[in-house]
C-alpha cells in the first residue's frame, strides 16, 4: 500500500518538524510496516524551470522524423533573459504552452548530464522534459504541458511538479484492512502522535429517497447495503485534474478516465471500493443475487467467466452485469461516450468476496478491500464523495434520487456494533507489564472504541471501521501496539520441567554420528518422485513402491508423487557428486517416506476439541510415514596413496553399514540373500531382526548404475529406521567375560559352493558349545585343491572357560564337536 505523505497529512495535524522517518518509525511500531520511502524527482539536479514556448518551427529530417526547433522563454534562469533555443522531438504542444525545461548544467535521473549540444543542425541549449525523463511515470506520449496558470517562466519547476514529495509504501497485514486507505493510515498516525484527526468520511449526505435508480437485493447475506447515485450530463472528455492523476500515480494506479479515476481516488481516500456504470447501458432495475448455474459474464478485463452459484452478481434485465464487489462487467462499463454515470457503493460479505476472487483467480484493489472487510457505514459517504467530484470535475449534475437498500441502510436493521468485554487487567497480564486501568481505557479510546468500565471489567464498543476487532485478545494487541512492543520486558518463564530428548531422538542422533564416523556424508534432498525414477530403479510395474501419495499441484509434472523410497533422490545426488569430480562418494540420508492410506481426513469444527474417536479417525487418514535410512557407496571407498591403491566400494561395504548399526545399537541383525530391485540379484541382502525384514543392502544392478550415471559396482542400502530403533534394547546388558587364557584353533572346512558362511558358522557355534568365545571366517578358497563346485572356508575359533585354563584335550574336543556339527548340518569336510 503506497501512500503519499502529503495525502496522509490532509487528515492529520502532524507537527511540521516531524521527519518522514520519524513518522514511518512510529507507524511501523504501530503495525503499519514501512516497506520503502520513494521520493519523486530523486536524481534531478540543477536548473529545472518553467518555460513558455514562444515559437516552434517544424523541421522534417532525412530520417523521416520531424523535430521542433523551439524558442523558449525561461525568464532569467539562463542568466541572460534571452529566449533559449531548444530542439524537441515531441509534438503535443503549441507555442504559448508552458513546459518544463532542464537547462545546460542540469542532471536528470540516471545521471543524465545536460549540456548545450549540436543536434539536427541547431545548437540545442537544454531539454523540454517528459514525465518519464523526470522519473515521474512511465507515460511518455510527449512532454509535460503545464496548465496555463502555472507560474511565470524561469520559476523553479520542482514545486509545480510536486517533486521531492515522499511516497511511503507500507506492508499492511491482512487484519488491518482499515489501513488500506489514507483515512485509516492517517487515523493511526494521529493516535501515534496524539494529534487531532480530521475524518474525511465526516460529511453530510443527502437522505435516501424513492427517486433513485431501482435496486433490489435478493441475497442479503451476500450484500447487506447497496447505495446508488446518479450524475447526469457528465463530460466524458473532461480531463482528470492533475492532483488526482498525480496521487493515483503515486499509489500505483494508472489514470484511465475522469470517471474511473474518481472512483479509484475515493477508494484510496476512504477505503471503500466503488463501481461506476454507464447508466445508458443499464436495462431495467439492478438486482443483486447469487449467480445461476451456467451463467456467464464478460468482466472488465474482457474475460468471459463461467459463474458459480456461490458468486454474487449484480444484474439488470439482461442478466449479470458485474461480479459484485470483485470486478465490473464489460457491457455497462463507462466509456468515452458516457454522460450519465450510476455510482454503486455496496457492502459485501467478505467471505463471498474471498471465495469468488479465489475461484476466478481475480485480485483487484477492490476485491482486496472487500474480502478483508470495509467500514459498513461508508457506502452513502463514499457515493456522495464520488458524486461531488464527478460534478466538480466532469461538469455533471447530481440527480436528487438517492437509492439505499438492504438492512445496512437503516440503524434499526443494521448489524449491531461489536462489543467486547474483558477483565480490565487482561492486557497487562497478557503483555506481562504493569498498566494502569486508565492507560488501557485510553488506548482503546484512541482507536475509536467507546469504553465502559464496570468493576473489574471493561466493555469496548468497537468502531465500524475496525472490522478486525472481535475477540478479547484483539483488544490486547491494540493496547500492546499503542503502549509499544518495545516496552515488553524480557522475562524467562518460571518453570519448564521436561524430560529431555526421547529415546528415539537420542538414537537418531547416535545413528547419524555412527554413520558419519564410518565415513558417510549426510545429505538432504527433496522427496518428490515420478514414474521415470521408478523405471530407472528397475521396479516391476506392480511394485508397491510405485504407489505414491500424489500431489495435486506438484512442482514438476515429472515428479507428481511423494516418494516411497529415498534411493532415486540419493542416487541422483551421488551422480551429481561424481560429475562434480568426486572419485568416491559415501552418502546417507534419513527422511520419512510416505505410503498412501486412501482415507479421507475429516474437517472438524474448531469450537471444541475433537473427541478421542474423532482424533483417531483424523490420524488414521494420514499416510503412513516411516523414517528411512538410505546409503549409497559409489567409486572409491578408501583412497589410494603411498600406502597402496584405493579400494572400491562393494556390496560388502553396504551390508557392513547395517551390521555396524546393529552392533552400535545392540540389535542382532540377520543377513540373508535376497533378490530385490534396484539391487544386483546375486548381490543383495535382506536384513531382518527377530525374523522381521526391514530393508535391503548390496550392490546395485548394473542397469541401475548405468541409468543413474554411477560407477559400476556402486552399492546401496535402504532400511526402515523406525523399525530398527524400535528393536533397540532399553539398556545394554553388561557383558560377562572371562580373564582365563584363550585357546585358539583354526579349522578349514570344504563345503559345497552354495552353502552360506552364515550356515557353517551357525553350525560351528552350535557344535562347539559354551566354551566357544568367538568364531571368525578368515579365508575363503575356491580352486583345484577343493574340487569343482566346492569352496574351502577357514575359521578361527577361540575357546575360553570362565573359571579355568582349558586343557588341550578340552579344546580339541570342543573343536571336533564343532566340526562334526558342521559336517552334519552343512556337509562340511575338514581339510
Amino acid at each position, binding site marked *: 500500500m503506497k501512500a503519499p505523505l502529503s495525502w496522509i497529512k490532509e487528515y492529520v495535524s502532524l507537527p511540521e518538524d516531524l521527519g518522514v522517518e520519524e513518522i514511518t518509525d512510529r507507524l511501523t511500531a504501530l503495525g503499519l510496516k514501512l516497506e520503502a520511502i520513494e521520493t519523486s524527482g530523486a536524481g534531478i539536479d540543477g536548473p529545472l524551470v518553467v518555460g513558455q514556448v514562444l515559437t516552434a518551427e517544424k523541421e522534417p529530417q532525412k530520417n523521416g522524423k520531424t523535430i521542433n526547433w523551439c524558442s523558449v522563454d525561461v525568464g532569467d534562469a539562463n542568466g541572460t533573459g534571452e529566449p533559449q533555443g531548444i530542439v524537441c522531438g515531441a509534438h503535443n504542444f503549441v507555442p504559448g504552452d508552458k513546459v518544463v525545461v532542464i537547462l545546460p548544467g542540469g542532471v536528470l535521473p540516471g545521471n543524465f548530464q545536460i549540456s548545450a549540444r549540436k543536434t539536427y543542425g541547431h545548437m540545442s541549449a537544454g531539454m523540454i522534459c517528459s514525465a518519464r525523463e523526470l522519473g515521474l511515470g512511465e507515460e511518455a506520449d510527449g512532454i509535460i504541458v503545464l496548465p496555463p496558470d502555472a507560474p511565470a517562466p524561469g520559476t523553479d519547476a520542482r514545486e509545480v511538479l510536486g517533486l521531492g514529495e515522499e511516497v511511503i509504501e507500507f506492508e499492511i497485514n491482512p487484519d488491518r484492512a482499515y489501513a488500506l486507505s489514507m483515512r485509516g493510515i492517517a487515523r493511526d498516525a494521529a493516535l501515534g502522535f496524539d494529534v487531532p484527526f480530521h475524518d474525511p468520511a465526516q460529511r453530510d449526505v443527502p437522505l435516501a429517497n424513492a427517486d433513485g435508480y431501482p435496486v433490489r437485493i435478493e441475497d442479503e447475506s451476500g450484500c447487506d447495503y447497496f447505495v446508488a447515485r446518479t450524475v447526469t450530463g457528465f463530460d466524458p472528455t473532461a480531463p482528470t485534474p492533475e492532483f488526482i492523476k498525480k496521487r493515483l500515480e503515486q499509489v500505483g494506479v494508472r489514470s484511465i478516465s475522469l470517471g474511473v479515476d474518481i472512483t479509484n481516488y475515493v477508494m484510496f481516500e476512504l477505503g471503500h471500493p466503488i463501481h461506476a456504470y454507464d447508466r445508458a447501458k443499464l436495462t431495467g432495475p439492478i438486482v443483486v443475487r447469487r449467480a445461476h448455474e451456467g451463467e456467464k459474464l464478460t468482466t472488465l478485463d474482457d474475460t468471459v467467466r463461467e459463474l458459480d452459484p456461490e458468486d454474487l452478481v449484480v444484474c439488470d434485465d439482461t442478466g449479470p452485469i458485474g461480479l459484485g464487489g470483485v470486478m465490473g462487467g464489460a457491457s455497462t462499463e463507462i466509456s468515452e461516450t458516457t454522460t450519465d454515470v450510476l455510482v454503486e457503493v455496496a457492502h459485501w460479505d467478505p467471505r463471498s468476496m474471498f471465495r469468488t476472487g479465489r475461484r476466478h483467480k481475480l485480485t483487484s484493489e477492490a476485491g482486496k478491500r472487500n474480502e478483508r472487510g470495509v467500514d459498513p457505514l461508508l457506502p452513502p459517504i463514499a457515493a456522495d464523495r464520488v458524486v461531488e467530484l464527478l460534478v466538480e470535475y466532469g461538469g455533471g449534475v447530481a440527480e436528487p434520487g438517492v437509492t439505499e437498500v438492504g438492512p445496512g441502510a437503516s440503524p434499526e436493521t443494521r448489524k449491531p456494533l461489536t462489543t467486547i468485554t474483558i477483565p480490565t487487567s487482561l492486557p497487562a497480564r497478557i503483555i506481562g507489564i504493569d498498566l494502569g486501568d486508565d492507560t488501557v481505557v485510553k488506548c482503546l479510546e484512541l482507536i475509536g472504541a467507546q469504553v465502559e468500565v464496570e468493576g473489574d471489567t471493561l466493555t469496548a464498543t468497537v468502531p465500524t471501521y475496525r472490522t478486525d476487532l472481535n*475477540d478479547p485478545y484483539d483488544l*490486547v494487541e491494540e493496547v500492546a501496539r499503542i503502549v509499544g512492543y518495545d516496552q515488553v520486558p524480557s522475562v524467562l518463564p518460571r518453570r519448564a520441567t521436561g524430560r*529431555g530428548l526421547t529415546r528415539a531422538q537420542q538414537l537418531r542422533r547416535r545413528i547419524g554420528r555412527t554413520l558419519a564416523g564410518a565415513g558417510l556424508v549426510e545429505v538432504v534432498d527433496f522427496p518428490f518422485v515420478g514414474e521415470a525414477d521408478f523405471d530407472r530403479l528397475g521396479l516391476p510395474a506392480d511394485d508397491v513402491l510405485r504407489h505414491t501419495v500424489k500431489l495435486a499441484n506438484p512442482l514438476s509434472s515429472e515428479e507428481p508423487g511423494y516418494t516411497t523410497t529415498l534411493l532415486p533422490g540419493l542416487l541422483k545426488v551421488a551422480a551429481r557428486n561424481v560429475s562434480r569430480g568426486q572419485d568416491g562418494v559415501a552418502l546417507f540420508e534419513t527422511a520419512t517416506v510416505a505410503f498412501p492410506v486412501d482415507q479421507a481426513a475429516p474437517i472438524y469444527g474448531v469450537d471444541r476439541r475433537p473427541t478421542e474417536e474423532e482424533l483417531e479417525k483424523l490420524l488414521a487418514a494420514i499416510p503412513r510415514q516411516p523414517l528411512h535410512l538410505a546409503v549409497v557407496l559409489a567409486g572409491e571407498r578408501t583412497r589410494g596413496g603411498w600406502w597402496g591403491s584405493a579400494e572400491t566400494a562393494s556390496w560388502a561395504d553396504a551390508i557392513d553399514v547395517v551390521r555396524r548399526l546393529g552392533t552400535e545399537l545392540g540389535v542382532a541383525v540377520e543377513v540373508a540373500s535376497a533378490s530385490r530391485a534396484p539391487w544386483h540379484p546375486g548381490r543383495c541382502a535382506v536384513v531382518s531382526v527377530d525374523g522381521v525384514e526391514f530393508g535391503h543392502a548390496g550392490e546395485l544392478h548394473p542397469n541401475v548404475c548405468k541409468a543413474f550415471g554411477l560407477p559400476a559396482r556402486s552399492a546401496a542400502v535402504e532400511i526402515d529406521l523406525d523399525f530398527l530403533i524400535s528393536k533397540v534394547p532399553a539398556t545394554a546388558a553388561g557383558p560377562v567375560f572371562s580373564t582365563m587364557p584363550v585357546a585358539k584353533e583354526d579349522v578349514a572346512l570344504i563345503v559345497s559352493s552354495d552353502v552360506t558362511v552364515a550356515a557353517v558358522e551357525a553350525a560351528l557355534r552350535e557344535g562347539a558349545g559354551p566354551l566357544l568365545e568367538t568364531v571368525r571366517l578368515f579365508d575363503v578358497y575356491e580352486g583345484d585343491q577343493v574340487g569343482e563346485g566346492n569352496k574351502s572356508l577357514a575359521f578361527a575359533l577361540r575357546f575360553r572357560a570362565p573359571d579355568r585354563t582349558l586343557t588341550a584335550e578340552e579344546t580339541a574336543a570342543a573343536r571336533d564337536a564343532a566340526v562334526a556339527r558342521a559336517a552334519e548340518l552343512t556337509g562340511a569336510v575338514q581339510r
Partner: protein
Amino acid sequence: MSGPNTDYDPVEVTPLKAEEVEAARDAALTAIAAANSLEELKQTRLDHAGDRSPLALANREIGALPPAARKEAGQRVGKARGAVNQALAARQKVLEAEHEARMLVEETVDVTLPTDRVPAGGRHPLTTGAEYIADIFVAMGWEVAEGPLIEAEWLNFDALNLGPDHPARTMQDTFWTEPAENHVVLRTHTSPVQARTMLTREAPIYVVCPGRVFRTDEYDATHSPMFHQVEGLAIDEGISMANLKGTLDHFATQMFGEGIVTRFRPSYFPFTEPSAEVDLTCFVCRGAQVVDAGDGQLVTCRTCKGEGWIEWGGCGIVNPRVLIACGVDPERYSGFAFGMGIDRTLMFRTGLSDLRTLFEGDVRLTTAFGSEL
C-alpha cells in the same frame, strides 16, 4: 689338563701370576672400551670373557693349586673377572642405547605424507543445526516434539484458526495431495505439531518443534519449496509476551552470542494474538549499522542494509481460539508460540549465501561442518 693331586708350586703356574692376571684384565678392559658396536663387543666378550679367554683359563688352573694357595689365586682371578664383566655390562648398556638412538633416527619418516586413507564423513548442517537449537531449549527444560510431514488439513490449518476461507490461507502456498476430498496436505509449517502436542498432552507444555515444511515457492537463492522451521510453544498459567521475549532473547544469545537480542514489531498471524515479527540484532555489525570496510573506513552494513536488525521470524500469544480447538482451557492457561526458519538461521550463523547449497547434496557442504554444528 693337570690332575688335582699333583703337587705344584703356585709361582710355577704362569697364568696365575699376579702380573699375568692383571695384564689379562687390563687387556680386556681396553678391548671393551674400544668396542664400538654391539657386534664388536660380542667378539670382545668371547675373547676376554669367553671359555677360552686368558682369565677363564687362569680360573681353571686354580683347582690345581695347593689348598693354601687357592684362596689367594681365586680372589685375584675372581676380582679381575668381576671387573671385566662389569665393564662388559656397562659397555653393553652404552652401546645398546647408542644403537637404539641410531635406529630411531634411521626410522624417521616424513610426517607430512598424506594420511587420509579413509575419507571423513559428516552430518548435514540442517540436522546438526536443528539439534543445536533443540539443545538450547532442552537445557531450559523444554522437550522436542515431532509430527508427520504429510498432515491432515484440519491440523495444518483449521485447528490453528486458519479456516477454509481465511485470507491468510493464500499466504501459504500449499501442496495438496490427491484427491482433494481427502483433506491431506504437505504441512506448510511446523505448527500442526503444536496442535498435536496440545491435543495429546496436558498443560503445562513447553515444546520446541524443529522440522521440514513445504510450500509451492519458486526455487532460488532465498526460496525453496522445501525448507525447515523451528517452532516453540509454551502453555502454562500466567504466560505473557514478556515470557516470549525472554525466551527468544535467550535463544538469540545462545545461537548468535552475547549481545544479540530480539525486537518485536506488531504483525499478524491467525494462530497468535497479539502477534509480532521478531527482529534480531544484526550479528554482523551487532546493531551498529556500519562495519569497518577493512581500511578503517566505516561503511553501511550489507547484512542488515544499515538497519542494525534483521528479520528472524514470527511469534505471539497463542490465540485462545486455537487453545479451544486443541482442548486447552483458555480461562486457565495462556501460551506463546514462535517460529523461524532453520535454514535462514543457519545461513546467518554460517555465512552461506545460497539456500540451494543446502539441498543439492554436495559432500563438500556437509564435510565442511563435521558432525556437530
